[in-house]
């Protein structure tokens, strides 16, 4: 489904060139749960964002179902992100002035399937919180909301950037099990973590990045 071919991305800061990704290549098939780990600054998030179409690489390709997303127009990239990719971030990034329900509804295509949202909220135990604002939620509840927002459109790939980074072990397990359940539905998951311990049991593949290169 996804073919990452010699992906390279460099950043320039204070006249110094920093190589975030250096000819990274791997494949993601339907039903894969790939855990990408490595130390801070190893290029994990850059890899995830490049796959998600938020960053254009300097060279290399991200082939989604055979199409190089780096050649997509802006509009095609928007559609790719809207239909094929779901993001979960460490910081949740919920809109603070929208309720739980509205944060999820925001990404849904029209007409909004209220029943589907309710089912997911029920499954993630946040249905009673649907009218609460993010400031009224615990971190675990925030991440569950962000998770539903990421998968409500049934994307082909879930890109999770340190999704448990801010959570306690109990909440981490809840989120990972929800991601695991999503994966069991035949979807692909790429999860980035600098501490993959808990996620390892869900992984079908594991990639270790260091200084922008796959070392394992």
């Amino acid at each position, binding site marked *: 489904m996804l073919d990452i071919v010699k992906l390279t991305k460099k950043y320039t800061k204070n006249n110094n060139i920093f190589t975030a990704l250096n000819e990274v290549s791997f494949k993601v098939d339907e039903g894969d749960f790939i855990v990408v780990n490595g130390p801070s600054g190893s290029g994990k998030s850059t890899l995830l964002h490049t796959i998600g179409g938020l960053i254009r690489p300097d060279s290399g390709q991200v082939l989604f179902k055979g199409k190089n997303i780096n050649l997509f127009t802006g509009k095609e990239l928007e559609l790719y992100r809207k239909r094929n990719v779901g993001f979960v971030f460490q910081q949740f990034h919920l809109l*603070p002035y929208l309720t739980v329900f*509205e944060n999820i509804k925001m990404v849904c295509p029209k007409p909004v399937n209220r029943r589907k949202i309710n089912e997911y909220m029920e499954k993630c135990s946040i249905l009673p919180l649907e009218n609460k604002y993010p400031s009224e939620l615990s971190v675990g509840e925030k991440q569950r909301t962000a998770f539903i927002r990421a998968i409500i459109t049934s994307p082909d790939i879930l890109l999770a950037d340190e999704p448990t980074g801010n959570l306690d072990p109990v909440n981490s397990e809840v989120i990972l099990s929800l991601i695991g359940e999503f994966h069991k539905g035949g979807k692909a998951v790429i999860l980035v973590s600098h501490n993959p311990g808990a996620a390892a049991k869900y992984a079908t593949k594991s990639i270790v990045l260091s200084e922008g290169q796959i070392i394992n």
Partner: protein
Amino acid sequence: MNAVILVIKEIFYRKVNSFIILLTVIVAGTVSVAIYSLSRASENETRKIMREQGLNLYIYPKGTNLIDFYSVNNTPVFPENYVDVLAESKTFDAVRHLTGILQLKYPDWTDPNGSRHQILVAGYKDEAVQRYLPGQETMGFDVPKGTVHVGSLISTNIPEGDLFKIRGKNGKIYEFPITKRLEEGKGMLDQGVAFYLEDLQQVLGMEGQINKIEALGCVCHDGRIKNARSQVQAIFSDLEVAEIGSIADARENQRLMMNKYGSFIIPFVILSALLISGLLFYSNVVTRRREIGIMIATGKSKYYILLIIMMKAFLLGLAGTIIGFFAGTAIAEYFGREIFRFTAQDIEPLWNVLGYVIFIFPVLWTLSGWIPALMATQVDAARTLSSE
């Protein structure tokens, strides 16, 4: 999710930012509407004062010395139908309220006590209806035929209920009921008598003759007096036009000065408010980078992001304009009542101005959010959302 609801929720969430932007629109709207309303009130005030002061243009035969109207009784005359010719002319539109007048000194009037006086007599033709101009309320003297208005000084010499008597050129004594005793302060007419034109012409044996036309040229600073002069002379080359200075001129100067200040202050306040708003929208976009990042990550288009920023600017612009309009009108009414003697009660909301500002201001404020909105579409979602 409906973009309007999203924008409204964001406005209420970031109350301080939104309130200050709203305040800039309110201030700009209030100042603009207040100054414009006061300027309009000032214009009306000037117009009313001009009316109060009487007609301010004289049209008279060339070669007439204006002082002769008050001192001698042999000023050149011309046919009274000149007034009708001017009123019927399609090309004569620079002045209004054309009134044909015969005004002379009557050197030997005897009052009821037998005392003799030099008085001024003036006969007024009905104000001409200018066929090709919209109708207006008449002004000047409206003396009914067969009656007179007497000036305040003469009035003291005629007991209440007595008739005004005057000897005609033919030696006959003419009697006229006094329908109005004029208040003092009418200038030379304090010692004069106002007649219906035909009556005075009969008394003086000057049928069909007048020696001046009085008229009103509304604003004298934009060349209309020149216009009036050329228009009159194009029809009657033997007539001249003169402008009579009055308090209205001072008021007019004051109004023009106010307009001048207004034409500086209004754009200055609007531009300053727009600049502040632009900076506040920029600050808002900076604050919302992560929100915008997540919108990009979830596939929202650049158009959508542009839309929500500019819609916020438009909604605040619209709300501020409406509040500013009523605040500006209230200020104009409050201060206008202190400033304007004649038109204080006439200061009312200028609904046509609301029509303009309700369109212009929201558009201006939307434009002030344009650059910040463009910047929002360029937010680097990867950087703002990254955990690394």
